[in-house]
């Protein structure tokens, strides 16, 4: 390969990682929520609220750290609304999640109306001295912004939490059999609220990454289905963080390749290429779901089920 090609490859890999980052945050958050037995379909709404809150905070000149925190907080606030309905009031989780998505799309568009067209400076990259110059992979792994680095750490951290820590064990127990967990004396609702809020904060971070770093602006509906793709990734990952991050990079790759293919001007309409991430999601779901027992064995047994204490 020539130098120019190597540089292009390095740029493509770095772009892939960036495209994967929001998916990784949202999917990992939802993974934890679902491991606790709660199905929250509201990722798209939480992500958009995170995006608009982070962008609004940054635009007001408060700096990046408060903006990122505002994104996470907005996602968690939306998740709290979901928790109130689905956990405390025991409403249907599918319906609540759909409501959260519809509401989040609307509310973010409403709140963000005055922010359309406003600029913010993109979240700066923090190159790791020395490592960032490694050919091909240096730019992808060591010349990124703080949120991308955080997403690198999130998967191993969550793997450790879920499978090596005591609290992770309790969380999984609540998701597998809430009646048994309750009988032992664990606070099922408390664990579930924590998991739901964590999932919301992660979706909020995904949104913050979109509006602060990936495309530093606010556009209505700018997540364009990423929340739903992240939901599919959780199934694809069979509820394992390591596979979720793998899936996120796979989809980052598809996204970037279709963008590059559009600019190379191969004779395919741009709309057909833009369909690829969505079609890939369907394909991946079909491939993974084909084996029904695999899903049944891996899915948390109480996923989406209402918990009644004192029954």
């Amino acid at each position, binding site marked *: 390969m020539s130098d120019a090609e190597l540089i292009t490859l390095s740029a493509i890999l770095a772009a892939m990682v960036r495209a994967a980052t929001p998916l990784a945050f949202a999917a990992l958050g939802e993974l934890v929520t679902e491991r606790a037995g709660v199905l929250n379909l509201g990722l798209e709404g939480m992500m958009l609220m995170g995006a608009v809150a982070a962008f609004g905070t940054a635009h007001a000149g408060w700096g990046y750290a408060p903006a990122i925190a505002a994104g996470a907080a907005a996602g968690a606030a939306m998740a709290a609304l979901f928790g109130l309905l689905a956990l405390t009031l025991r409403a249907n989780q599918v319906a609540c999640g759909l409501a959260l998505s519809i509401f989040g799309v609307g509310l973010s568009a409403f709140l963000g109306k005055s922010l359309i067209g406003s600029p913010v400076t993109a979240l700066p990259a923090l190159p790791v001295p020395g490592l960032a110059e490694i050919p091909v992979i240096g730019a992808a792994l060591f010349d990124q912004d703080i949120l991308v680095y955080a997403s690198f750490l999130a998967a191993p951290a969550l793997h450790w939490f879920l499978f090596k820590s005591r609290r992770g064990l309790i969380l999984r127990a609540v998701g597998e059999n809430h009646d048994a967990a309750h009988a032992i004396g664990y606070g099922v609702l408390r664990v579930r609220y924590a998991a739901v809020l964590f999932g919301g904060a992660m979706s909020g971070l995904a949104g913050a990454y979109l509006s602060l770093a990936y495309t530093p602006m606010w556009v209505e509906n700018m997540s364009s289905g990423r929340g739903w793709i992240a939901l599919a990734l959780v199934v694809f990952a069979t509820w394992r963080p390591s596979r979720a991050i793998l899936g996120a990079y796979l989809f980052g790759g598809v996204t970037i390749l279709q963008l590059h293919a559009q600019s190379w001007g191969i004779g395919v309409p741009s709309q057909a290429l833009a369909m690829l991430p*969505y079609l890939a999601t369907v394909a991946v779901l079909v491939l993974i779901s084909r084996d029904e027992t695999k899903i049944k064995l891996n899915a948390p047994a109480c996923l989406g089920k209402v918990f009644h204490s004192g029954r």
Partner: protein
Amino acid sequence: MPLRLEARAEPSRAMVFAAPVIAIAATLCLGGILFAALGFDPFTALAAFFIEPVSTVYGLSELLLKATPLALIGVGLALGFRGNVWNIGAEGQLIIGAVAGGGMALALYDVSGLWVMPCVLAAGVAGGAAYAAVPALLRTRFHANEILTSLMLNYVATLFLGWLVHGPWRSPEGYNFPESRMFTDSALLPLLVEGTRLHVGVLFAPLAAFATWVIVSRSFLGFQIKVIGMTPAAGSFAGFGPRRVIWFTLMFGGGLAGLAGAMEVAGPIGQLVPIVSPGYGYTAIIAAFLGRLHPFGILLSSLLLALIYLGGDAAQIALAVPFAVTQVFQGMVLFFLLAADVLIRYRVRFDAPRSVAS
């Protein structure tokens, strides 16, 4: 926790009907507070939102025009929801219905006759049903979750329509705007009331609701849907699996969404454009829940949600608030409804719990 839910001996029938009323009242209250926070007089603002848009004959005709796709899609979706089939892809099915109906109208551009318009609508139904067959096949054959597959196909449908009107179907006399040719009069739905946009297609909504009611309450298939929805295992014991229910409800809902799409392009729009629906496919989900998944209830809830669309339009002009206020109100209604629904199965008590706190 001071708030405690006490299970009722049996679900309250009264609350099934009261919950939507409570939800609407709560939405109006919160909406008023929202407007007050934005610096408007809440009563004037609410009147501008909910009353003024329907104070004229034209306004009422627009209400029916917008309620029609919501009701058509809503009754179809509700049938699936009863059977635990979560079709979230009505928006895509509507778009493909519009594409199929529009394609038929463009194919029959040079002919005229009374049969052209029915062909357009039939193509819409077929297109929507065929598009809904994809998640049905993926669910029954590969067990792929229909929520995610049907939703992904919404984005695909939008892009497909975008490609058609930017590319092969772009009007040759359209100055390069991404639009198809205007359909000929033969392809358009005749107007019901002169001077408005209200067309005969509005009659399909009560018709579809009645047909759905017959299916739900009078047919064996409707019985199967309800059984599968409540306890899937019971269906298997009785000798019928979910397969038929999945196929039927998705195709039925898809067909109605496709009809709604064809009626949008052969009605008020009159050609194919990149955006043929302001999210009817999603709002219809709210209509289905608010209408208690009952066909006649959905006719009523569609009117309310259509009113919110009109109110959003009016508020944009009169109060200069973004149109997104529509989705905020629609989302609020659904939230309050889901919260109020707890009263069907529980009584709320505000006292100290007797047993272990939950």
